[in-house]
């Protein structure tokens, strides 16, 4: 079938199928054929001047055939991926680079639409449609594998002698150079293919360097954030982190408990045994609180000796009370430091998000503070839940007398020495928010 087609075409076009030079070198002007200007070129933009047609020199008997062969020579250099199609739709000749893509089976003589699938425009189905598609952007694809995609542009040859389709790889260039082992000699010097490959490679290298930098910066950012949300002395979350967790619990509508714990007699330890002892005590306190709570709970140090524990999903007062008492009990176990024992205790107050129609962080903290104040008033080492009445019981302003000896009903043998006197915060506004 192909053989027959080829010989018919050969006769029709006035040259044998060997007429197409097997090998051409591109991009090397010294090796390139310099075709004589024939009637085909004269038929170009200047043809309208009519008389130019007569300038063609004498002695060009097989004019059309010669001219076409010359056109092919020109196209092979300028457009190494062109296809010349006969009016019947058979491939007459292909440029050297396109020939290289199907070197084994050869393309000449094959019906164009059997070799290439016309993807767009979709309404082109017949060879007649194709011939009429002058100037349209064609999207084509090899029907067999590798199914390389092409962009194409068709222009008819004069005198109904068929058409030239110039192809380019477009974006498939990257796969094409790999699939067909193309070299820069396969592209016309004016083709931007090599520049495109260069850019792809250069940009990939630059992107890779940027990606590495980004990863490194991201790691540094995570570490910085971690640090920004961590109390470096105890390793607990800090006030800012607690605020974020609290906001998140509220936003998600979780039921949770907020427990405020304030150390008693810590200042005495700090003053009498030094800051190093104080720091050690704080670290032990943090350890105890983490041990006595679950993974899902948030333990934060929000002030010098003030802690918040957020119990996610906690609703049971009895359980919370037990946890609070257990923590206080643990904290009262004397902590050894430098051959001495540090004695501290703690008071705590708890609010439950479920007690509020619309829990607000500021309100929860303020109410927990009131409950804590009540615990202090009750004589330290106590745990209280917030109750509405506490708002009325609380004196306005700092409760200077809290913890004064004699007022305590939970005298546990520790002598307060008065160093523990510190202001508690009035209701309504938590100083940490």
């Amino acid at each position, binding site marked *: 079938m192909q053989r027959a087609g080829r010989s018919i075409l050969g006769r029709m076009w006035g040259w044998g199928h060997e007429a197409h030079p097997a090998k051409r070198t591109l991009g090397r002007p010294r090796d390139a054929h310099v075709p004589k200007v024939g009637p085909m070129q004269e038929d170009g933009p200047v043809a309208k001047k009519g008389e130019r047609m007569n300038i063609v020199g004498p002695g060009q008997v097989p004019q059309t055939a010669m001219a076409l062969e010359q056109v092919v020579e020109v196209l092979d250099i300028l457009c190494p991926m062109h296809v010349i199609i006969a009016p019947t739709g058979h491939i007459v000749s292909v440029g050297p680079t396109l020939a290289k893509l199907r070197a084994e089976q050869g393309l000449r003589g094959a019906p164009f639409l059997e070799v290439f699938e016309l993807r767009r425009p979709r309404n082109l189905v017949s060879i007649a449609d194709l011939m009429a598609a002058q100037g349209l952007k064609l999207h084509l694809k090899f029907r067999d594998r590798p199914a390389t995609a092409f962009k194409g542009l068709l222009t008819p040859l004069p005198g109904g002698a068929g058409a030239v389709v110039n192809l380019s790889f477009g974006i498939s260039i990257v*796969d094409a150079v790999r699939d067909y082992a193309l070299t820069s000699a396969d592209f016309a010097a004016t083709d931007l293919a090599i520049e495109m*490959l*260069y850019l792809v490679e250069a940009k990939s290298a630059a992107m890779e360097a940027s990606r590495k930098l980004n990863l490194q910066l991201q790691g540094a950012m995570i570490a910085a954030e971690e640090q920004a949300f961590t109390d470096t002395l105890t390793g607990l979350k800090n006030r800012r982190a607690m605020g974020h967790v609290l906001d998140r619990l509220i936003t998600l509508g979780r039921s949770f408990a907020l427990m405020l714990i304030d150390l008693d007699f810590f200042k005495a330890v700090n003053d009498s045994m030094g800051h190093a002892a104080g720091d050690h005590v704080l670290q032990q306190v943090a350890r105890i609180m983490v041990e006595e709570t679950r993974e899902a709970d948030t333990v934060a140090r929000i002030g010098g000796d003030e802690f918040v524990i957020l119990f996610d999903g906690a609703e049971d007062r009895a359980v919370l009370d037990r946890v609070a008492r257990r923590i206080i009990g643990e904290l009262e176990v004397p902590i050894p430091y430098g051959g001495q024992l540090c004695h501290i205790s703690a008071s705590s107050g708890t609010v439950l998000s479920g007690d509020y129609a619309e829990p607000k962080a500021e309100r929860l903290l303020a109410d927990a503070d009131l409950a804590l104040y009540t615990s202090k008033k009750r004589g330290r080492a106590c745990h209280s839940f917030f109750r509405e009445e506490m708002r009325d019981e609380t004196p306005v302003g700092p409760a200077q007398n809290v913890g004064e000896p004699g007022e305590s009903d939970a005298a546990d043998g520790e002598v307060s020495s008065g160093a523990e006197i510190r202001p508690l915060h009035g209701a309504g506004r938590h100083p940490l928010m």
Partner: protein
Amino acid sequence: MHGLVNRAIQRFVTDTYGAALWRRVAHEAQLGFVDFESMLIYDDVLTPRVLDAVEAELGKPRAEILEDIGTYLVSHPNAEAVRRLLRFGGEDFVDFLHSLDDLPDRARLAVSDLDLPQLELREHAADRFSLTVCARKDGFGPVMIGMLRSLADDYGALVLLERRAGGERAAGCVNSEGLDVIDITLIEAGYAEGRSFDLGANVGLGA
């Protein structure tokens, strides 16, 4: 100076003399860090300080070190990307030489803030060229010598290179510290096999 330049010096030192020596260099140069980042811009004073420290560590003249850096960039497997990007410039060595004028612009296409020296090739005969290297900072001339020598090997060409200090200032090359002219004599274009260059070797791999 662009991180890519500083990073190239670091990788040359690390790949050639080991990471321990580089750490000493970073310390002596008082960088305050060990690793340069390719995609950051550093203060111009750091690069000469690093080169001073390398010079002191290796006990080698500065020009020799710079030339070795040029050689490293083209021939070391860890710098293969550089070699490939340079080989995109031309099919053979002469073709490549003619592409050098475009090199700074090509580099800028990929990394817009990379300011490479201005290069200008003059052809005196088919086998005699001179390359003017006009840089904002001193030191690129010897690097270029090392690169050209290795690229000639890469293409399989036999060349003679000679560096002239000073020389004719190329048009537009003003207020620059680094001005070098390199005389290039092509003895044989196809002297050796050279290394192959596969256009599609790296494309599509994403890195």
